[in-house]
Structures are given as C-alpha cells and as structure tokens.
C-alpha cells in the first residue's frame, strides 16, 4: 500500500481570531499553529493503520513555507514514513490541490487521504479537486473504511445517516470522526522523525481564481438575560413571544 496523506497547518483551536486595521488580512501575530485535526486524527492515523496491516509506506505532503516543517515532523513522529513539502504559499484550495496533484500524478498511490475539511477555511475542496485532476473516485466524510484486497468498503457520513459504498483502489478519500483514533507521538517516534526524509520541491505555476477581500467577526450577542430557575414558564414565554423560536 502506497498511501499519500495531505496535511495542512491551521491556527490552534483556541486562537483569538482578529484582522488587520482595514480587515483585509488575518492577524497572525501570536497565533500558534497545529496540524489540521481532521488530517491528523483521522486521515493520517487511518493511513498508518493500513500501512501497519498491509505493508508499504505512508507519505505526507504539505504545501507551504519552511515554518510548516514542525507540523510535518509531527506527522512523521506519529508514524508517517516520508514527507514532501511543496514550497509555495497555500493561497487557495485550488492552488494546493494543483500542487499535490502534480506531485502525485506519476507516483501511482493506492490511496490519497485527507481530513474532511480544514478548521480555518472550512472549504472541503482540496480532496475533490485532487481527485478530478487525477481522474479518480472521491469519497467524502468517510467515518469507516475496510479494505479487502483491492476492494474498499467505505462508510460516508451524510445528513442524518450514512452511505456505505464499495469501490476499487486507487481513490481519494476525506476522513471524518470515527475513521481512526487520535495517536499521541511517543519519544521513539519523535526521535525517529528527525531522521526520516523530508523532501522540499518547488511549486508549479498556478493562479487562484478567487480571493478574500474582507474579513468580519460575527455580530456580538447583546448580553445574556438570566431567568429565575423557579420560573421555567417565563423562559418558555420569552422563547415564544420575544425570540419567536417556538
């Protein structure tokens, strides 16, 4: 099994989101970064499990600057075998997908895995785009995957339920909760990660076709109205008459 896992770097989940003075740029000052949880907890770990069971190797790939190496090393510490970093600025989903597809197109990976979305831009686009570039099937929001020989049975989350699909490798799959259990890197993994290969390659030309021009924070709540715990009739009345939600 040759597996490729796409990992992205996202602001840490408690990061305070703010913007520059004219709201055109995300303020990165003081922001700590982590590996996107869906990539790390589910896609990467599932790939490692498959590799452990069937042999082969797990390659992780990231599009971004040298600062991202710390996140890439963590993926190696968790258990990936090799890493590729494409030294470009991850400006948009289409840019990232194009770079990864260019890298993967002649490597005959059996499966390309990634998280269902990144927790910063929540685009859920990259996997579908890579699949289209490589003309492969794409399954999204997979919460379970079994492999027998070349045939995979994949359970995908849909609204209020699941769809169970069967197909042959190779394909691209995006992982959601349930696919695997988070793994914490151990000391040995961390030591070994320093020796594992991390290859840096240049990007291909590609210009994004959409751009963010402005950011906003959601409207603040005006303040909580406390209700006497003894008077739940009053809460019901307010929900009906004031909030008009029941």
């Amino acid at each position, binding site marked *: 099994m040759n597996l490729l896992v796409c990992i992205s770097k996202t602001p840490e989940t408690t990061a305070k*989101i703010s913007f520059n003075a004219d709201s055109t740029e995300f303020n990165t000052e003081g922001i700590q970064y982590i590996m996107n949880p869906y990539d790390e907890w589910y896609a990467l770990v599932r790939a490692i499990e498959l590799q452990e069971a069937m042999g082969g190797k797990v390659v992780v790939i990231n599009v971004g600057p040298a600062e991202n190496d710390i996140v890439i090393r963590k993926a190696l510490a968790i258990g990936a075998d090799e890493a590729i970093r494409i030294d470009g600025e991850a400006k948009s989903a289409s840019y990232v997908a194009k770079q990864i597809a260019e890298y993967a197109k002649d490597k005959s990976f059996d499966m390309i895995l990634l998280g269902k979305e990144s927790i910063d831009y929540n685009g859920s686009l990259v996997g579908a785009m890579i699949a289209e570039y490589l003309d492969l099937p794409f399954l999204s929001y997979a919460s379970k995957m079994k492999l027998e020989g070349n045939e995979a049975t994949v359970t995908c989350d849909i609204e209020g339920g699941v769809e169970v699909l069967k197909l042959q490798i190779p394909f691209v799959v995006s992982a959601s909760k349930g696919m695997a259990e988070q793994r914490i890197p151990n000391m040995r993994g961390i030591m070994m990660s320093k020796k594992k290969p991390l290859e840096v390659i240049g990007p291909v030309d590609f210009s994004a076709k959409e751009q963010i021009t*402005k950011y906003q924070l959601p409207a603040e709540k005006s303040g909580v109205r406390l*209700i006497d715990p003894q008077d739940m009739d009053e809460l019901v*009345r307010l929900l009906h008459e004031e909030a008009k939600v029941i």
Partner: protein
Amino acid sequence: MSILVYIEAINGNFKKAAYELCNYGCKLAESMSTQCIALTNADSSVAQKLSNYGADKIVNFSHEALHDSKMMTKLISDFAKANDASVVILADNSRGKSLLGRIATRMDGSVVSSVTTLPDLTNQFAVDKSLFSGKSVGTFQMVSNFKIISVSRNSIGVQEISKPSNVETFDASSYSSDVSLVETTRVQGTVPLPEAELVVSAGRGMKGPENWGIIEELAETLGATTACSRPVSDSGWRPHHEHVGQTGIAIKPNLYIAIGISGAIQHLAGVNNSKTIVVINKDSEAPFFKAADYGVVADLFDVVPRLNESLKKFKEG
C-alpha cells in the same frame, strides 16, 4: 447564458433547503437578466414543484449512482456546458461538498463553499462565507467566467415565486459508475442535526449516559434534535454524529439549548451562529453565558424536567 442549480431529492422528495436553493438561483438569474435552470433527480411530478420557487426551466434525470462524485461531475459539467451555464449552484451538504471542488477543477472556474449571501455583481461577484467554523466571515471575489458555489441553508430564506415552467427529461443513461452503493441508512423519526431548527444539546455536566432520559424527553416535547459536546461523544456516551463544534458539526439552528456544557471556544465555534441560545449551567461563571441570549443558573437535574413540564403546558396551550 444561464444559471444552473443542481437540486437533489432525498427519498424522492424535496426538503425546504431545496426550495431555498431554487430561490437563490432564480434571484441570481434575475439580477443577471438570464434564466434559472434546475437540474434534479426527482420524478417529474415532484420536479414540477420547483416551478413554484423560481425555476425558469426544470430538467430531470434518473440515475442510480448519485453518490459517485466522478460520474456526477461529468454529468453536471456536460449539462452546464450544453446549457451555457456561467454559474452552478449546489447545496452546502455532504453531496454538494463532494462535487463542488471537482466541478470547479473540471470547468476551470472560481469556487467558494458554504456561501451565505447573494453575489454582489458590482464587486467581482463577491460572496460571503463563514470561516474558522463560525468564528468569522470572509468576503470572496470570484474572478473566472465560470463560477460554482455551494449555498448554506437559511441564507436567504424560502419564498414562493411562480414560473410557468414544465419539466423536461435529460437522458443520463450513458453515464456509468464504478462506485457501488451497498446501503443507505438514515436515522428515522428525527430531523438530521445539520438541518434541525431546534437543538437540545448536553455536555459533561450530565455525569453519565444513563442520565440522558431528561434530554431526550425535552427534545421530544420540542420536536428538537439532540446534540452533545466533544468529550461526551469521545467517551461514547452519545454517538459521534451528535458532536457539534469546531471539530464536529457546525450548526445554525433557530434555537440551541446548551445543558451542562461549559462553552469552550471550540464548542462555541460550531454553534455561535444559532439564532437564539439558551444556556443551563450551575456555574454562573461558565463562559457559555457570554454567548447566550437566555441563561438559567441552576442544577440541570432540577431545572430540565421542569422546563419540560412548562413546554408541555405551552404545547397543549
């Protein structure tokens, strides 16, 4: 030129979100002085309903493999080209997300997911999208001639707009799939969490899964869907599909009742776009109160059953 909206019927029927999507296509088409074409898998009699929501032209097709994003991308892209569509609109659900990036790549277009506003035609087709799981909003300009978006539920609401359109049929029999569907399972009886207008959610304050009876009773009285915080689903107290937040499902119901949930930033990220938030927590310092519209500082085991009684009284009204 035209605007193409792909509208999927679930179990043969449309949900409210389908009509909102059709409305969105119609409004955009009107502002661009062109026509809105609705492409759907629904039977003709069901498909015809889209004429009440602004479709100028309705085209239906029938195929077993709607789950195959590769095949559906070809089908929708071919149809878009044949009808000279400059914008394709999809639902912002699991299906839409599996198609959006693919179609954008195939058609070499601009793409934005989870759009919440109609495009601003005076500003490079700018649309808003929620970012950081609801912690902020970004405005995106879309510069290609071809554009594709998925539209979030409850973005523009639903309105009846009658058009004299009839249903035509598109022959999709030449499209073949190599992904087979083994089975589809849907939770019966309740509205799926991403679509729910009323949500009752509970956290670690519940102490254990054996105590969830009061939450289920409250949800039943309200006709609400149940949700939970991450540690609750991680501990196996509740199923994964109930987990809301930054690493769970992001929702924006009309009413979110949070019971015994502290309101950590990762939890708030997925729920803070709810219209009205009620927080029940015994700790008056719980951070959730800052994000709430109504708060009850009390022991949940005492207050939830009484809230249920009051609601029952109200319902029987």
